[in-house]
Every structure is written in C-alpha cells, then in structure tokens.
C-alpha cells in the first residue's frame, strides 16, 4: 500500500497536534473534578470548561449560558427532541416535523417517541435533497411543538435554507431544532440570524476528540433533561464532565475559526476539481446532492451498475478511505435512506460513494483519487451482469 489518503472526514476527523497538546494537561496535571470548587484542582477544571464554552458560544453567536456539553452529536439530537417532547407531554402538543433525510439520531428518536403518543411528519426532499418550504408550512398543525431539520446532510452534503425555515418556525411559535453536526465548521452558523432555538454539534467532525458534543439551547426554552443527576451544566445535563474532551472541543473550534473563509474557499475548489474529474472521466455517474448548495468538502456520486461496498474495499486496497452512505449505516445492507428520499432507484443507490476532503487534502490527492476510482469502476463494471439502465430497473 503505497499511499494513505483519508477521504472520510464526514465520518470523523484526525485530532490535530494543537488539540492534543491542549488536552494533555487535563489528564494528570489538572485532573480535579470540576464540581469540586473548594480546591484549586477542581477550580482549574471548571475554568477550562467555561473557557471552551465561551469559544463554542462565540462561534455560533450564542451566549455562553446557552451552550451545554454532551457526549456526542447523537446525544444532542436525542436531548433536543426528547427534551422538548417530554416537556410538552400531556399538554396537547404532540407533533414534530422533520425530514426524510435526517441522521438516524433524529429519525430513530422520533420513531421511539411514538410509544409516548408523539407523532412525526417526515418531509420529502427533491432530487437535490432540498425540502419544500410550502410543504413545511402545510405540515404545521396546532399540535406541532418542534421542527427538527438538519443544516447540512451528512451523506449528500445538501444545505437547507435554515434561515427561512427558522422564520416559519418563529412565525408559528414552534421551536426549531437544527442538527448542525455536519455544518459546524463548514457553514457560517448564527443562531440569532438563522432563528435557531436548539443546535446540535459534535467535536469529532471538526478535528476535536470523539465522544464530546454540544447542544445550544436558546434561553427560556422549555426542555426536560435527558440525563438526570448532579448539578453539572447548570443542572441541565448530569454526569462528571469529560474535561479533557471539552477542552479539545474548544481548541478545535478555535482552530476552525482561524482562516475560516480562506480554508472553506480552498476546500471548495478542491471539491469541485474532484467532482469535475469524476464527471469527465467516468461515464454513467450521478452526482448526489445539490451542485452548489452543498458542504465544501462533500463529493458523493453513484456509479451505476456496480455496488458500493466492493468499490470501498478496492479503494481501501489503494490506500483511500471513503464511505458508502453514512458511517453509522455501514453495518446495514439497505441502501441509504437519504438517496432513496431523493427519488433514486435502489440499484443505483447501492453504488454510491462519498468522498469528504479536509484542509490537508492536496490537488495531487484529488487527481490520484480520480484516477483510482476510475480504474476501480472499470474493473467492477467488467464483472457486472448489469450493463445498462434497463437491467438496473428490472427487479
């Protein structure tokens, strides 16, 4: 294996040296429990947490008192949705609106809430993965308590019109939760301007450590706790804080903040080079997601007549790490629910590969990727009994 090329940065990212250095003090030097305010070691831990909280708050234009640390983007999604749902239990507000292309953390949470009498409407998306604002308006009922829509999709990278959705929610006095896990660090998030009431974040998608997330909760929002116990996080999220992880999250945000615009511009250019390279060199491919309203680092194509897992395995042999759909579903055999929601047929959906690049990706890497994926697609197509769209649609 000559080359190592990690192109699955939407699944998780490498933790950089600066982040590791910042975290390292909180293992065996400043190891106090942040709840222990009566001695120095405990106060140090607490201060470190509050510093990180301010950094995260600044980054999304929130107040530091509105940021709560959790263990993952998934926990944040669960908390936002269950917390609002349970706070409204038996109050005649039992309806949630979300979309068909949310992360499982949202979809499975909404499904679970059915047993508590809570109903969910799943909005459609068009072939680019965009929701229809008119359909959203029509879905709103007197019982609707929450609209939960992701800022940007993790598989196809499509960015929703969050500000407009937020306005609709506000006009109807409905809370608006945004799964911002993929958007954080790639799109400018401003909870005020975008009318966001709850925002889920996750550190490991932006160069921070795994197992730490955040939830922005607009002041005054009525929400139950998901995890009960001690008085951590101002009594709203119990459990001894993963201090080192919180510090790492803060540092990762700090790094992303520097040169934000120029970095995003550079990555976007590379993304488009990869998109053009694949489109121009490999026949019978479909770009998934919106051509322009998409995450700066996301390239997702369906390669007709072949299947995604075998592409991934061959890519791995060539040193390239990529993904077919989201990392979390890679254990399952169903084609991506996101691609199906865009109206794609199952057969084509099965042959989809997501490359997600990072600041470390070079032009040379992009060109190597185009050449490699072309070779692999050719090889697998030669083996396939499906040769055209007719074959693909038979079933």
């Amino acid at each position: 294996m000559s080359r190592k090329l990690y192109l699955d940065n939407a699944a998780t990212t490498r933790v950089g040296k600066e982040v590791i250095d910042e975290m390292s003090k909180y293992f065996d030097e400043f190891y106090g429990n942040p709840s222990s305010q009566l001695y120095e070691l405990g106060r140090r831990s607490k201060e470190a947490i509050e510093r990180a909280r301010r950094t995260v708050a600044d980054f999304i234009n929130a107040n530091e008192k509105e940021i709560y640390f959790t263990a993952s983007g998934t926990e944040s999604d669960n908390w936002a949705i269950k917390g609002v749902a349970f706070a409204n239990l038996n109050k005649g507000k039992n309806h949630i609106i979300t979309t068909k292309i949310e992360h499982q953390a949202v979809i499975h949470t909404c499904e679970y809430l059915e047993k508590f009498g809570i109903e969910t409407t799943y909005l459609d998306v068009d072939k680019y993965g965009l929701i229809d604002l008119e359909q959203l308006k029509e879905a709103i009922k007197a019982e609707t308590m929450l609209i939960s829509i992701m800022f940007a999709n993790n598989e196809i990278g499509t960015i929703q019109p969050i500000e407009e959705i937020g306005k609709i929610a506000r006009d109807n006095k409905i809370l608006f939760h945004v799964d911002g896990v993929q958007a954080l660090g790639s799109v400018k998030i401003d909870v005020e301007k975008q009318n966001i009431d709850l925002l889920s974040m996750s550190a490991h998608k932006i160069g921070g450590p795994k197992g730490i997330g955040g939830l922005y909760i607009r002041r005054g929002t009525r929400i139950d706790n998901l995890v009960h116990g001690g008085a951590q996080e101002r009594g709203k999220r119990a459990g001894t804080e993963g201090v080192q992880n919180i510090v790492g999250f803060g540092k990762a945000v700090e790094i992303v903040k520097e040169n934000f615009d120029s970095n995003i511009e550079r990555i976007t250019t590379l993304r488009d080079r990869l998109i053009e390279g694949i489109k121009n060199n490999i026949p019978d491919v479909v770009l998934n997601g919106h051509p322009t309203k998409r995450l700066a680092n996301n390239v997702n194509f369906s390669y007709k007549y072949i299947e995604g897992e075998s592409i991934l395995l061959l890519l791995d042999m060539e040193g390239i790490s990529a993904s077919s759909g989201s990392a979390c579903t890679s254990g399952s055999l169903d084609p991506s629910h996101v691609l199906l929601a865009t109206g794609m047929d199952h057969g084509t959906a099965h042959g989809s590969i997501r490359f997600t690049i990072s600041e470390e990706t070079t032009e040379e890497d992009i060109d190597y990727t185009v050449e490699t994926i072309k070779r692999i697609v050719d090889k697998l197509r030669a083996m396939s009994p499906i040769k055209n769209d007719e074959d693909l649609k038979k079933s």
Partner: protein
Amino acid sequence: MYTAEVMDHFRNPRNVGNMENADGVGQVGNPKCGDIMKIYLKIKDEIIEDVKFETFGCGSAIASSSMATELIKGKSIHEAVTMTNKAVIEALGGLPPVKVHCSVLAEQAVKSALYDYAQKSNKVIKGLENYKPEDDEVHCH
C-alpha cells in the same frame, strides 16, 4: 471483517466473465437488494467443463461467486447440484453473519444455471425436482 480467503477471491476473482453459447445460464438476485449473480455453464458429458460468472454486489458476493465457480468447475452436474452455501462459506474460511445471504445466492445461482441446462437439454437432475426458478417478488435478505 473478511477472511484472507474472501479477500483473495474478491481481489482476484476466478472465472469472471460471460460465455457465448453457454449450455446453461442462471441469474438470481436483483438490483433492489444490491446483489445479482449470473452463472454460465459449459457442459459436456454431464461434466462442467467451464464456468463463468458476472456479479453485481458487495465484496462477499463477488468472493462467493468466485468460490462457487471453483467448487463446481470440472465436477459432474450431479455433484454440482449438491453444492451448498455452507460449502461456500467453509471454503471461504467464514463469512460475517450479515453476509451469509451472499453464499445462499451463489448456491441458488448454480442451481438456476443447472436448471436452465436441464430444461434446455431435457435432462433430469436429481435434487432439482423441486427447484423453482425465483418468483418475481423481491425479498431482500
């Protein structure tokens, strides 16, 4: 995730390709489920002289097809029809539980091709009396 044997058959699949004037052809699976296997047989004096496959599917589908063709190549049709998915799994040194259906598909593809041969040549193959070609309904595993 996969054994070395699976990876070997995936990376260097044996007997890939199609075949003109095959004596029996079988295709199972469908694109909806993400696996299709097509097997071509050349048969002379009830012996499988040559076999080819084409597969749309995951790594273990390709490896299972490749292994199945190896297991029946040179065998008599009566031996070939007794090849089970277990034999494919064993020869591959095991498959992850979620991938066992690939080996089942390989067994069915072989049976389907033998059935096609039996139909065309008006032969009876013991063990295929009750074989029914796949119905049209789709059941993904």
